[in-house]
Structures are given as structure tokens and as C-alpha cells.
């Protein structure tokens, strides 16, 4: 807890010139500090009193002098140093002019306590680090086994192979041998020639409208009652190919309203008059 006494304007224990010297000395070693709290901690230690009895106001003054000095020396300080300066300037004003400011704002005492806690906590952690590293350490005072044999792991291989795999492998060999004299089976397919012959014949029979025949679905050009799927598919493929070939020759026109819509053909007699 911080007594009321510390918030009052203490008679300066150190002169202004001493503060500036102190700030300069601190700045010369700026790389040796770990941030603004660390700098404040060093300043607080220089007051040579218990942290719980530290004069926050004097600390704030010293810190401001430190920042002023840094700016005079055109040193670039990290942002957190400036944030701390702003915070301390605010705290200082609250300490000097109590009662002013918002009700919502934390009062000076709370702020001073927070700073004091922050300093004490960091000091505690710095001491903890020291204590930690003065413990006996592995490789310095405590030693592990110098020649560890290590723990070995023996791996047992379990083969993931079934009788089926074995028989299948044998089957594969036999099949490969048989494939040396393999004959292709006969497939019942609609040849391009047959499709061309059929389509030409059917186009000629379509009713005429002017220089064209009526539109007719591609499906209509295929033989009816096909039972064999392969035959059906090859028939469709051949019919479409023949249709495209005839269109290229200008003998038919092809249209389709959209994707997956029926394909229509009609015979075109435009060229006939000329030939």
C-alpha cells in the first residue's frame, strides 16, 4: 500500500542537475535496458528506498528528464518509452492537481499503485531469473549418463499378404502368358459405311419444305428395336458422325436447342440446283 505522504510534493531529494546527470548516464546504457519499466526500476533503485516507499512523483520527474535528454540527444527510443512518458505525465498531473479530471478516469492513487505493482512484479521476476540461474544446472553441476547406450527398438515385420494375393499373382502370370496369343473377339458394331448408306437413303425419303426437308431427330435415323447396348451406342455414334460429315458437305443442316437436347437434322437441297 502506498501512503498518502508519497503523493505530496516531496522536497527534492536530488537536485535538478543530478536528475539530468542521472538521465544522461542511463541513456548512455540504453541498450542495456529491457524497456521503460526496467529503466524506471533502475531509477527507483537509485532512490535507495524500498519499492513500496518509492516516491512516484520523483520517479515520474526523473523519467521525463530521461526522455527530454534522449530527445535532446536525438536518440530514437522505442514507442513503448514514449507511451510510458505520456502515461507518467498524466499521472504527474493527477498527483499534482488532485480532484481535476473525469470521474471515470482512474484516480492518482490507483495509477500510482499500478505502477508500483508493475515495478515490484518486474523486480520479482528479475530476481527469480537470477535465482533460477544460480541453481545447479545440468551440464554444469548435475550430469546425465555420459555414455548412454540408448533404448533400442526391434521391429518385427508383419507381412500384409493374403492367400488371395498369392493366387491372384499366379493368375496374373498365367494370364500374361496367355495374352501372347490372344484373339480379339468379334463385336457387333454399326460401321460408318452402313450408317452413311442408311442415313442417305432415309434423308431422301423425308417430306420436303422448299429447299429443305422437315427437321427430324437424329434418333429417328437409327434402326429400331435395338437390344444390344453396344450396338445401340455405336449406331448413335455413327449416325452423328455421318450427320456431321454430311453437314460439312452441305447436304444437311444440324441444330440442337441446348445441351443434352435432341439433335435435329434436315436435308438441304440448296446446292442441288447449281450442280
Amino acid at each position, binding site marked *: 500500500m502506498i501512503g498518502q505522504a508519497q503523493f505530496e510534493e516531496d522536497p527534492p531529494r536530488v537536485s535538478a542537475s543530478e536528475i539530468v546527470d542521472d538521465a544522461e548516464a542511463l541513456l548512455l546504457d540504453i541498450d542495456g535496458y*529491457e*524497456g*521503460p*519499466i*526496467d529503466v524506471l526500476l533502475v531509477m527507483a533503485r537509485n532512490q535507495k528506498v524500498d519499492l513500496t516507499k518509492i516516491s512516484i512523483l520523483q520517479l515520474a520527474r526523473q523519467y521525463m528528464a530521461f526522455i527530454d535528454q534522449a530527445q535532446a540527444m536525438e536518440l530514437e527510443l*522505442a*514507442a*513503448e518509452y514514449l*507511451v*510510458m512518458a505520456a*502515461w507518467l505525465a498524466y499521472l504527474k498531473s493527477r498527483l499534482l492537481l488532485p480532484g481535476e479530471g473525469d470521474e471515470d478516469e482512474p484516480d492518482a492513487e490507483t*495509477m500510482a499503485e*499500478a*505502477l508500483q*505493482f*508493475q515495478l*515490484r*512484479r*518486474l523486480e*520479482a*521476476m*528479475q*530476481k*527469480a*531469473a537470477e*535465482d*533460477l*540461474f544460480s*541453481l*545447479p*544446472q*545440468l*551440464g*554444469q*553441476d*548435475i*550430469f*546425465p*549418463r555420459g555414455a*548412454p*547406450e*540408448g*533404448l533400442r527398438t526391434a521391429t518385427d515385420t508383419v507381412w500384409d499378404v493374403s492367400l488371395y494375393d498369392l493366387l491372384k499373382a499366379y493368375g496374373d502370370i498365367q494370364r500374361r502368358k496367355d495374352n501372347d496369343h490372344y484373339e480379339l473377339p468379334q463385336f457387333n458394331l454399326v460401321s460408318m459405311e452402313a450408317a452413311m448408306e442408311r442415313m442417305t437413303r432415309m434423308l431422301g425419303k423425308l417430306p420436303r419444305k422448299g429447299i429443305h426437308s422437315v427437321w427430324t431427330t437424329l434418333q429417328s435415323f437409327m434402326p429400331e428395336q435395338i437390344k444390344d447396348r453396344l450396338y445401340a451406342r455405336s449406331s448413335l455414334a455413327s449416325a452423328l458422325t455421318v450427320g456431321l460429315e454430311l453437314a460439312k458437305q452441305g447436304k444437311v443442316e444440324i441444330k440442337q436447342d441446348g445441351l443434352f437436347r435432341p439433335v435435329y437434322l434436315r436435308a438441304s437441297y440448296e446446292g442441288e440446283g447449281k450442280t
Partner: protein
Amino acid sequence: MTQVQTEDIRVLEAMLFASAEPLSLTTIRERLPANSDVGGMLMALQKTYDKRGVHLVDMDGEWAFRTAQDLGEALQLKKEVQRKLSRAAMETLAIIAYHQPVTRAEIENIRGVATHKGTLDVLMEAGWIKPGRRRETPGRPLTWVTATAFLDHFGLESMMDLPGLDELKASGLLDRRPAIETLPSTGELFAVEDDDESEEFLREEEVE
């Protein structure tokens, strides 16, 4: 003690001697008959070595033989060349040890300064710290905790043995809450960075 158990203790002893690293109970159990009273055997073995030059050390559930702490001087062994830790790294380690689990933002708040990326890396590389659970607060920041190698290095049996822990607890100085905000826009800025870092860490994990 039964004949069987004596034999198992021999195996346990040899196992711990042969390993350079502390062994977890799981690792030990794998190599002993099922249903062995591993805990009981470890205690028995520890007692056997109690007054010897070599001790069986329990580090929070991981066990290893180590030379007795009081013999450091007498041994006159070649000491390992230690990498000198920066003050920042030492302080950060102390904060993680005493305040764990602790987020990077909290460490920065306690120290009042931003943490260099290298600081946590160095500590993690030494095997002294590891990421803990994410804090269930906005941004789900990663926390840091000490690892077994930390106890091993400083000859501690558990975190309870940290020097001055009780006094620190009693004085209330192990409060992690930010006292004053000395870091520019601490909250968001560092929460975001924390996330990046942990994601990076997870990526590394996946690669492994």
C-alpha cells in the same frame, strides 16, 4: 519383494541408465510386463539410490538418473559450454516458469516491452518451454508453459520447487493481469501476432 519384481526392477534400472533423456511412465510401461507396478518400482529404485552418488530423479512424471546435486564441484568433469542467454530470455523464462500458463501478451505486459521473436525461439530450442493450451479469451491466444527439460536442467522435481515460489505467491506478485499499459495498442496488436506465431508453430508440427 518377489523374484519377478526384482528382475523387473533390474530391467527398469538398466532402462533408465541406458537412456540419455528422462523417460515417461508410458515409455517405461511399454518395456515392462503388463500390469507391472511401475510407480512402486520407481519409488523403490529411487530409495535405493537415495544416498548414492547418482540419484533417480522424478521430474513431474518423467524419470532419469542424474549425478547427485551436491557433487558438482567434486566431480571435476568437463562442463558443457553454455550459450549465454540474453537478459530478455532469462527474464522471459522466469516469467513463464512462475506465471505459467502465460500468453505472450501477458509476458510483454509484465516486462513492459515487446518480445523479440528470437526470445521464445531460443527458449523453445533449448527445450525449456513449449506451447500450452490456448486461452479461452477473445483471439484464443496461445499460452506458454515449461517443458520437462526445464526441470531437468535446473534439477527441479516439479514446478513447486521453484526458488521463492511461496513468497511470490503470498506477495501477490504472480498476478498476470496488466497493471499499466505501456505497450502501444497492446491488446489487438499482440493478440494478432500471437496467432500468427502459433499458426506457424502448428505448421511446423504438421511437417514433422
